[in-house]
């Protein structure tokens, strides 16, 4: 079977025209993705380990910021409960454009093992998600891979794009 690289510069066959300014700006954006530390549960410990010395996050240019206003990507690590859902939406709305979301772990993807009354069944009911990370808890290397995929995704987007309408406002 022939292996092929997914050409991320093509979108369903049609090439996206990226000018060199676009490429430069997006290269800059991808190499300094500042993350909002949104560690909710067990995946937060793995996210902290990913930021630790063995799986260093700083070499990707990713620094954990406390305030949503400073950050580009929101890594939702852990279970989102219905009590907390409102705050997540608020924090997402407070982030400045351009922003991305990585949903880390089973609980953030789909509610995980907690098929109960108080768990939001997937954080994409509330906010639009770019990268889903499976695992319970995903290893720090998985989070690194997700970050690199996100960097690839950022580089193929135009610099001036308007927020593409996703399933939710």
């Amino acid at each position, binding site marked *: 079977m022939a292996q092929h690289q*997914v050409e991320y510069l093509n979108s369903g066959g049609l090439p996206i025209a990226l000018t060199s300014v676009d490429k430069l700006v997006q290269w800059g954006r991808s190499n300094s993705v500042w993350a909002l530390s949104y560690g909710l549960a067990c995946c937060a410990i793995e996210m902290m380990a990913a930021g630790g010395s063995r799986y260093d996050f700083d070499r990707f240019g990713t620094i954990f910021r406390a305030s949503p206003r400073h950050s580009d990507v929101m890594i939702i690590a852990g279970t989102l409960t219905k009590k907390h859902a*409102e705050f997540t939406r608020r924090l997402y709305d407070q982030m400045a454009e351009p922003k991305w979301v990585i949903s880390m772990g089973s609980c953030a993807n789909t509610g995980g093992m907690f098929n109960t009354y*108080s768990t939001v069944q997937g954080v994409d009911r509330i906010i639009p998600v770019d990268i889903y990370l499976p695992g319970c808890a995903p290893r720090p290397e998985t989070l690194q891979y997700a970050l690199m995929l996100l960097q690839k995704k950022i*580089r193929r987007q135009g610099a001036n794009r308007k927020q593409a309408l996703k*399933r939710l406002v």
Partner: protein
Amino acid sequence: MRRYQDKHNVQKQAYYTDRFNVQPSLPRFEVTEDSLFNATLLHVKGLVDVLEAYVEAGQLVVWVAPKANVSALKAFKTAGYENLSEMSAVDFIAQKGGFEVFYQLLSMEKHERARVKCFVPQGETLHSVTEVYKSANWSEREMYDMFGILLENHPYMKRLLMPDDWQGHPLLKTYPLQGDEAAQWYEIDTIFGKEYREVVGPENRDPARVDARNTVDFSRIGHEVESGAPYSATPTAQEYQEKGGIAVVSKITKEKAKTLKERP
């Protein structure tokens, strides 16, 4: 014919029961003269009306009337049980019409544990024991939140674990595990409003639902495609960077990766 659902207990039940099976119980021992708990029990009996007392699993269990819970705990406190480890309720509404509230006590000097139990019929209120042990403050709030048992004279009787405007008391046996309608739409209602229910759609509570042809929500491992592109049979290479690499950043490919035997 639709499946019979017992409305009094919507938790999962064993689908097969041996008709003639009688489950054994944990043995209960009398508190005899030479038992460790004898001194405690005599002390407590002098101060409060004890309905029943036995030793189960190495711990003393004392049954009292619900109106006497504060005096029973005060009696135990004078007997040396200075620590309330835990307290909560068990839902027996369908079987007996009420809750079994238990208080788990610990005496550090005597190395003993005891449990005070009382039966609270549904609808009756219980007096709070925060004046005796402060750790009951939050335990009672949690008990109210989960079961709906009201407490008198509690300093801050408010829901603890569920949001303040939650409808229903989750740990009752009549409350389904996945929540009733108010629960399932709670977050959509509070954030976006009821009109958005159709926009977002119901929750997916089926853990086994996988639609392989759906490339928007799922991605076939080893054969990933762009979101929305047609389902492909050719395997995709897993690379960290685009072909040709990125400017200034060092290039990594799978061939250049080294496999280490020992972690440094």
